[in-house]
């Protein structure tokens, strides 16, 4: 038993030595961290960028928008990612750059006959003032409101744009786009909201004030539920990260963002 432990300790030690030796390689490296909504996009952008620039190494981490702000402030990451309509006050020393935008779609079950709502109806549904689908021309069922957790970029953007939202305490809270989609898809009485890139045939987006959440209506400014995605740096970005940021804003970067479900920065 003891000998086994000692051999393990030996393996660990060797691994440590190798690790330290491995750090000797000279490569420009930086880390991005934050918004889980943008993380997959950042990973793909980083892969494409590194394929063209083999001397650069980019590590992408999740953690949420607050981690993005904290990591950029503390230097744990050179670039923070955040998806909030307005950045929190402690992010003020950071330089921010909008790299993409994201539409927020209001979704219900495909079995629900309701197809359009006004922004005011949306507000009253989420405030718990409209409580049955019958009031909206649907079936006589209670409405199950599904929202995101307090502080979520999607939720604070949603509440800010809809305005005067005081979420009903009855509301079910789910903490990701994926679980919101599952919850709404499985409950004919549910209503929720999520990133428009995640719309599929298991859920149905409703028109808000006469417009569906589509790329065109967002670009034309008709659909109002849109939030920006920020990349944050402490001071001016360094040469390596600047190169990457430029790449994200380039036609190639933006078209990748576009083809995977987000909307161009401009």
């Amino acid at each position, binding site marked *: 038993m003891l000998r086994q*432990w000692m051999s393990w300790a030996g393996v660990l030690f060797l691994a440590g030595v190798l*690790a330290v030796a491995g*750090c000797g390689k000279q490569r420009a490296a930086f880390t991005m961290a934050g918004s*889980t909504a943008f993380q997959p996009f950042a990973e793909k952008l980083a892969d494409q960028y590194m394929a063209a620039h083999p001397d650069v190494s980019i590590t992408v981490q999740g953690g949420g928008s607050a981690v993005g702000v904290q990591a950029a402030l503390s230097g744990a990451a050179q670039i923070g990612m955040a998806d909030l309509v307005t950045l929190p006050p402690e992010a003020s020393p950071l330089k921010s750059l909008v790299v993409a935008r994201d539409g927020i779609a209001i979704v219900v079950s495909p079995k629900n006959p309701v197809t359009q709502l006004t922004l005011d109806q949306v507000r009253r549904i989420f405030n718990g003032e409209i409580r049955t689908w019958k009031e909206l021309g649907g079936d006589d069922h209670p409405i199950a409101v599904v929202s995101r957790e307090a502080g979520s970029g999607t939720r604070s953007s949603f509440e800010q744009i809809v305005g005067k939202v005081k979420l009903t305490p009855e509301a079910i809270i789910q903490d990701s786009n994926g679980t919101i989609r599952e919850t709404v898809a499985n409950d004919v009485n549910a209503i929720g909201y999520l990133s428009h890139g995640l719309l599929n045939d298991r859920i149905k987006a409703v028109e808000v004030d006469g417009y569906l959440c589509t790329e065109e209506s967002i670009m034309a400014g008709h659909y109002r539920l849109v939030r920006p995605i920020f990349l944050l740096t402490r001071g001016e970005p360094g040469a390596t990260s600047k190169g990457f940021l430029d790449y994200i804003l380039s036609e190639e970067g933006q078209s990748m963002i576009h083809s995977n479900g987000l909307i161009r920065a401009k």
Partner: protein
Amino acid sequence: MRVPPKYAQVLAVALLGAATLLTLVVLVFIIVFVLTKGLPTVNAAFLFTVPRDMGRSGGILPTLIGTVLLPLLALVIALPLGVGTAVYLTEYTRESRVTRMLSFGADCLAGIPSIIFGLFGFIFFVVMLHMGWCLLAGGLTLAIMILPTIIRTSEEAIRAVPNAYREVSFSLGATRWETVLKVVLPNALPGIVTGIMLGIARCIGETAAVIFTAGSSLRMPTSVFDSVRTMSVHFYILAREGISSENAYGTAAVLVISVLAVNLVAYGLMHRFISRRTR
């Protein structure tokens, strides 16, 4: 009314059997559910290629490696500490207020949600000790997280070793340390292995604490200072961000199969060890 013992026995066994059967049915349902959803995606290419397109296509090789390395590292740190603590608490101290308080504290920590361990690891290892998100920070955090389980199960297993064994060993002139090493620990091994299995399982299944400390980078790790993504975290991100449910369930299926493999190997080793000793 008194039920005759014989009927009581029949009734009780029927109830117990039914309960056990129910447990097994639930277990089988869950495993079959995950496997039927996931196995169609799993093939050699899925296992041995790197993920592409955010994990929407391509395989899971880096997460497979992360899932092996991270719990292993946590275990290498936690096992000696945990078993050592249990030995110390049971063999070297008399049960006193202090030792009782210590095991009580360990029990309480077992219930602390993993996200708190994750936050602690993030602030302490990642930020304060400047490790960054890496295998080492994740391993240390997970090690602390599974310590209470390992301490508690080892302690129980060691206590269950009959005192007569120790007395015989002492009477043969063995020191306390020799007794612990050659008599107590081998006899407590099944219980300790249970603790190890629960600990490994918890590490493999953990998401929150891992994301905060080992990170969630999809890159292949080359040292303990690199960030890794485990299969659980991969499933979590794929499923929750709605990236690809096929690959998410594929990952879950591989995860279930690997846990099964780990369990089988551990039990195989243990039984070989026991039968060699008793021969």
